[in-house]
């Protein structure tokens, strides 16, 4: 028995040592930055391009990737200190407006959210056909918002449908197995559903349908305190990100290949997501910052959150345009 306990203790120390090694802070003099991402092309394309082309290493940064399912959790992880920098989609921006985090880089305006219906289940292009249908959605996200707007456009409310609260992955499984009549989800889950169900599945509404009501902006964020304490590091990280954005614009296939490797997904699925947004180069983005286009998009986005945010909060309070401009110098 004593022998067994001794062996177990040795195993404990050895295994702990192995796992402890995996979290080494420094590799070859590079500063490690823990970056939260979501499992889609939009979140990873510029980041992975920067990593693979050595743009971050040139800035003295080693990126450590951590996968998340949603923006609010990324912000919660950043608040707890386990993550330094994160990527968020449209929905989590209201937390930035409310002062939870600061945006230091614009990512893109997306068209990844969609309400998808199944013809075989009686759903048509007319949103009113959703009445009484079983619909999966992710509450508290852009999925819920686009579903509510779609129903609203046909004079319906959530009470007129049978809504099931699920996570994005479960919605995908439920749709492809025919358990739901329709769903509201985001890319790349929307592509997976459309690919798997062929002609039977179709888009009832997406971000473009409601472009007059909101801009589906995605951004890179940090905690205010972290940004103040690591301003130089943040600027260097942004430079690496810009290099990634520029490489992506010229090398879509290669970038998709790298993203597919990180996600463990098929190349075709990832490549199909290139249409989720209009992808800017660093110069194009700087030009849009300077002419006020990007600030306007954040303004429209802020107002779309309604009473969930204080509409009088200036965009400049939570978007650090100075970092974006300094990194471009």
């Amino acid at each position, binding site marked *: 028995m004593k022998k067994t306990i001794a062996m*177990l203790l040795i195993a404990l120390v050895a295994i702990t040592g192995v796992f402890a090694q*995996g979290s080494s802070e420094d590799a070859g003099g590079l500063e490690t930055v823990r970056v939260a991402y979501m499992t889609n092309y939009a979140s990873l394309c510029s980041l992975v391009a920067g990593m693979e082309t050595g743009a971050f290493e040139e800035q003295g940064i080693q990126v450590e990737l951590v*996968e998340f399912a949603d923006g609010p*959790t990324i912000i919660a992880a950043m608040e*707890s200190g*386990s*993550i330094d920098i994160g990527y968020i989609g449209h929905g989590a921006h209201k937390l930035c407006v409310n002062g939870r985090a600061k945006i230091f880089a614009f990512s893109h305006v997306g068209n990844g959210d969609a309400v998808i219906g199944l013809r075989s289940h009686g759903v048509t292009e007319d949103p009113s056909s959703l009445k009484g249908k079983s619909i999966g959605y992710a509450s*508290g996200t852009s999925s819920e918002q686009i579903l509510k707007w779609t129903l609203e456009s046909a004079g319906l409310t959530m009470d007129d449908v049978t809504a099931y609260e699920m996570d994005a*992955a*479960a919605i995908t499984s439920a749709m492809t197995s025919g358990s739901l009549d329709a769903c509201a989800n985001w890319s790349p889950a929307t592509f997976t559903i459309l690919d798997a169900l062929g002609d039977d599945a179709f888009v009832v509404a997406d971000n473009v349908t409601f472009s007059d009501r909101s801009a589906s902006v995605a951004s890179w964020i940090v905690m205010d305190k972290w940004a103040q304490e690591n301003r130089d590091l943040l600027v260097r990280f942004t430079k690496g990100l810009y290099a990634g954005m520029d490489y992506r614009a010229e090398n879509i296939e290669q970038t998709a290949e790298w993203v597919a490797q990180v996600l463990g997904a098929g190349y075709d699925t990832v490549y199909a997501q290139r249409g989720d947004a209009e992808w800017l180069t660093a110069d194009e983005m700087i030009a849009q910052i300077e002419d006020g286009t990007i600030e306007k998009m954040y303004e429209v986005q802020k107002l779309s959150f309604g009473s969930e945010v204080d509409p009088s909060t200036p965009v400049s309070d939570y978007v650090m345009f100075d970092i974006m401009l300094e990194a471009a110098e």
Partner: protein
Amino acid sequence: MLLALVSLILVTSLVLLAIRRDHRCILLALTCLSLFVFIFSTLMYIAKKGGIGREVSTILFGTRGIRTWFMYRIVTFEQLGFMSAVGRYSFPLLLVLTSLDMAWFPLALKAKRRSWALFILPVLIMVAYIPSVFRALIRPGESVLMALVYASRTYVYLYIAMAVATLVGELVSITLPFFRRRFFTRSSILISLALIYAFYAVQDPAQIYMFYSSDYMFLLGMWYLSPALSPALYALVIVGSVLFGLVGFVSMLRYARTTFDERREEITLRRSASLAAKGVSMFFHGTKNELIAQGLLVNRLMKKYPHDEDLNRLSRINQELSHRLDSLHKASRSEISTLSIIPLSPVIAKAVDKVRSHHPDAGIELVSADEDIQVLADGDNLSEAVANILMNAVEAQIEADPARPVELEYATERLWVSIRITDHGKGIGRRELRQIWQPFYTSKSSSQNWGMGMYFSRNVVRSHLGSIRYEGVEGGGSSFIILLPKLGVPYSGED
């Protein structure tokens, strides 16, 4: 890894239940099932939520494929949250009930009598976490949500502390090393389950009901994303819980194997005993009549020649042979006992006298914690059973070191009255230990020995609803512990 571990623990507890089918095994299986449900739902939540690095993912799920499998399960937040609530809130209650079932110190006995009261808090909390009730309750605002989360967390840790305190209290109250060792092994199952659970118990089902809502996250934090859990510390805690889990798993496996071995041994012994009883019966009836006829003839001859030395010797041999035949017949029919409440001391004294009549110089050291112990027993049979074991101990001791006494100790402990007989002879090998309970087995070359003593003793003790345990003694020697049910305690078949 964690998933594999809790699955193994659950399967083992179910195997144990299939073998033993008693109240405690049902409780243990339910406890393991509730832990499995809780860990399963927690892992599914983490898989769907993300935020863990590759190392932690490997520790929790094993492969990426398993994590993906969890991620894509079709389950609504209400289903997953309620599954988590059932596991989270039933485990502490079941753990306390199982701990109390194993405890016999006064406070635990009082708590056992009022165990219904233990259900009130978990049932109330479980009702509060029914999805529709939960949503209605938290509607007024954040303060209600926080109160609910902290109340349920308090219940969880309070009950875990109660269970651990019960186990520690029982361990402290046990004085005999044999019982303490046995209890420690069995309680390690529960301690390891409690440790695994306690680490993940911060996971509140509210986090699942409010999966994408930032309200919960910013009010109460995300437990598994805590900065205190650096990858190294996370690994240490998880690997630690895996090791404790393994101890529990091995204990449970050993418990199941012991039960299985005991059953198998019992069946083998019954078969041997049945055959032996038939043989003894035929031999006894065939020989006894002729022995009686021979005795009558010898008596008649002794009347004619009262001073003949040879005839006197023949008469003594005849009587001794008749007595031994009677003993053999009695031993083969030892399952018949007439039980009554009697003091234990005279039974022990009679056994000692019997041994001393054979070995007048034998050293026997009597130790008793309580002279007034009473047992429900057949005094003659029990004293004979004790004498048989004591005789073997004395003979082993004389062979090894005649100057050193054999220790005879009796006391009450937990559910049992124990009689321990310890010698410092050469001990008993593992192979021989399997055979000593067999009828007609003897390691002695004496013509006076039928090899029925230990078989007889075992049968008598079992007919008293007791058992005999063997332990080797450090430095050589053997210790036999006869366990008899303590008066006034309902018989459960185990301690």
